[in-house]
């Protein structure tokens, strides 16, 4: 039993919550020197398995073995002691403390009970250098970018644990360059014999970095396999357990007659936020917004909705000059906005699904015409069905739903107000493949019903699939408007990247 093929192994793990079987006899083996992707839709049991491997949950059956020996992981500290370190999607470090302290917290070198700060910072500098970070270890962690914080988190996990590294969606908030930098570090750690579990929603990244993949579905193990002999379609099919038409037609270039002009933004902008832009939006069209993180995409959406007030330019709604300085104005004109940061700006976590659905409609109706409970139930029920919201009850708190279902609820919230214009900021970010397809279908359906939509997305394949025109943002400026056959990823990437070759336009 002393030596084993696996650095970390789970055998027959069972985990039951109430009467719901979250994990049903799942086996998982992780070898030293491999990157092992763990995939599954939301609710497949990924996070439950990870929490068991990191000691956050205790299994109801089965055993966990580290280096071939059975271990009991009662808490994260014990997992750490067995060489298992974890890095989470939202950096779980302390932005208010120094980089060095974040690396060493709990393990600071001390003399007579006092922390030896100089030694700690010198040690930190050496470690950071190995991860390609040339930053001051005494600086506050919060002063650095998310990517740097993520690398610090990895450094901490590896330095403290050293055998197994679990990466739980580490790339969700990183841009392309940062992801590449992270991958270099992962490859380097792998070469040093670390066993790495990698969880992500991005299949591209799985194929770029992982050696093997384990796929879970509904709490059961579907397959563990080397990635070499698999295609993307194989992986998606195994995850969903069915064939899904994942990619729609590329480019909406059917000669559907464009509806009448709904919105006309002229020289519309806000200082230090978005340069003035001109944009006309017709009924029944989807405008895709492409651009890197920080290019001004979200800022553009916010001034369109009045979440930030524009300080120059004009907007006409259905031909008439309008003033949209506050979200209330926008809602009055039939606008809706699904923000990017669903947790912070979208959902009311402790309120029920029903309340989350009716709240914008109630806001539109005002204080004095409250929807009674039956009306609320009717509306919520209608959307729960048409949007296929998977909740045990419409009265359960929305925070208990998966990300994809939360997104459907927020979409329903706006659809309940019978909108003319919807702005969706990254509607498919961080949600599972099934819900993803559902949202894309919904976008297409709404367009066909005559709504105007602006959809911001980092997924070029996706933007291309449903947009009739694409607006490209760069450095807080609208730099291109693409239509027709120019709607393809190649042209968009070029438009985004143009400034590298020098000044343009």
């Amino acid at each position, binding site marked *: 039993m002393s030596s084993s093929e696996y650095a970390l192994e789970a055998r027959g793990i069972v985990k039951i919550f109430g009467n719901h079987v979250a994990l049903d006899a799942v086996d998982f083996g992780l070898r030293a020197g491999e990157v092992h992707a763990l995939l599954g839709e939301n609710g497949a049991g990924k996070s439950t398995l990870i929490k068991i491997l990191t000691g956050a949950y205790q299994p109801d059956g089965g055993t966990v073995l580290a280096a071939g020996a059975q271990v009991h992981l009662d808490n*994260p*500290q014990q997992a*750490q002691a067995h060489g298992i370190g*974890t890095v*989470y999607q939202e950096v*779980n*470090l*302390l*932005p*208010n*403390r120094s980089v060095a*302290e*974040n690396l060493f*917290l*709990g393990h*600071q070198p*001390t003399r007579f*009970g*006092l*922390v030896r*700060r100089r030694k700690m910072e010198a040690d930190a500098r050496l470690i950071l250098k190995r991860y390609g970070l040339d930053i001051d270890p005494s*600086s*506050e962690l*919060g*002063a650095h*970018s998310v990517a740097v914080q993520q690398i610090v988190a990895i450094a*901490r996990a590896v330095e403290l644990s050293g055998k197994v590294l679990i990466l739980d969606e580490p790339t969700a908030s990183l841009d392309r360059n940062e992801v590449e930098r992270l991958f270099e570090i992962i490859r380097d750690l792998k070469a040093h014999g670390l066993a790495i579990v990698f969880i992500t929603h991005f299949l591209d990244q799985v194929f770029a970095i992982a050696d093997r993949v384990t796929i879970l579905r509904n709490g059961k193990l579907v397959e563990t396999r080397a990635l070499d002999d698999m295609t993307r379609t194989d992986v998606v099919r195994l995850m969903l357990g069915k064939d899904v038409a994942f990619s729609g037609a590329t480019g909406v270039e059917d000669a559907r007659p464009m509806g009448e002009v709904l919105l006309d933004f002229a020289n519309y902008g806000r200082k230090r936020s978005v340069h003035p832009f001109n944009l006309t939006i017709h009924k029944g069209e989807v405008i895709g917004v492409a651009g890197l993180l920080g290019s001004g995409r979200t800022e553009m959406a916010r001034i369109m909705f009045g979440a930030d007030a524009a300080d120059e330019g004009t907007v006409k709604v259905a031909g008439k000059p309008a003033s949209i300085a506050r979200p209330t104005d926008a809602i009055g004109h039939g606008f809706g906005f699904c923000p990017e940061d669903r947790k912070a700006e979208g959902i009311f976590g402790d309120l029920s699904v029903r309340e989350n659905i009716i709240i914008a409609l109630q806001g539109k109706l005002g204080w004095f015409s409250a929807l009674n409970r039956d009306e609320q139930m009717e509306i919520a029920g209608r959307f729960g069905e048409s949007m296929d919201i998977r909740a045990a009850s419409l009265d359960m708190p929305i925070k208990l739903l998966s990300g994809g279902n939360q997104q459907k609820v927020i979409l329903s919230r706006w659809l309940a107000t019978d909108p003319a214009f919807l702005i969706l900021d990254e509607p498919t970010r961080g949600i599972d493949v099934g819900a993803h397809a559902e949202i894309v279908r919904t976008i297409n359906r709404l367009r066909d019903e005559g709504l105007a939509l602006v959809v911001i997305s980092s997924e070029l394949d996706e933007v291309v699939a449903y947009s009739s025109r694409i607006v490209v943002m760069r450095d807080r400026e609208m730099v291109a408007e693409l239509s027709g056959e120019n709607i393809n990823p190649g042209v968009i990437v070029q438009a985004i990247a143009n400034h590298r070759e020098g000044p343009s336009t």
Partner: protein
Amino acid sequence: MSRSLRPLLATAVIFAIAYALAVLQFPAMFSTRVLGNFLTDNAFLGITAVGMTFVILSGGIDLSVGAVIGFTGVLVAVLISWAGWHPLTAFALALSIAAIFGGVMGLAIHYLQVPAFIVTLAGMFLARGGASVITQDSVPINHEFYDWISQLIIRLPGGGRLSFIGLLMVAVFIVGALVAHRTKFGSYVYALGGNPVSASLMGVPVARTTVAVYTLSSVLAALAGIVFSLYTSAGYPLAAVGVELDAISAVVIGGTLLTGGYGFVLGTFIGVMLLGLVQTYIIFDGTLSSWWTKIVIGALLFLFIVLQRLIFAASAQGEKAS
């Protein structure tokens, strides 16, 4: 440098300016006598505020400290004057009771997941009520140990006197600063105040740290109660009403962020001194109502909350832009 230093700097500058202005008007305020009395008069508040600094740094609040001071004063006075205990024995018992009291509050806050505000509010009523149950009257203390302590004085040139309790406060501040800034326990306190979820995932013993923080606060409040009884030679169940709010003010004026995670023990010292300065000024002036103290404290508090807001908002913007 770091943004948490800026409020501290602001406090120090405001104190220096305020003191200079006061001295310009009343040159007598610049004397070792006044400075010595600063320490003596604010000793109990300072000691309480050190504990409060830890609590606030950890992201909590402790409303019970004023009541603990009152309870300790009464308990000590009754044990010495009525039961004939030696003061040191009485002190030991009072400190032990406070430790248990604070520990239980910490346990309740952590395990019952009840906000610190509520738990320590309950603690405040319990301690204040307990003090009034022991006696409703002011109990004088006449004991040679008290006389002996009050004669432990370092005389300064210029007629100033450093009293035992003033020096005790300085010692508490020094030890408090070391613990907060140089020990693992201190780093855990900041970690809790920064992000309790991260802290727990990073292996910080959250339960132990929470219990320790409230135990420390109650023990220091009891120590402040002992100091208060040495200062007044009496115990009174309604003593130190509202001191918890003075202590919170001193901590915030001293540059500690009320939401936790940022701040310095030394800043609290300056905060306490600034409050003391306001009181001393009003005594020197002689015509102002002592309620002006409250108005000035209110204005200062407001100023510092706005200041911190501006500093932290500005640096958050800087991060986004970079």
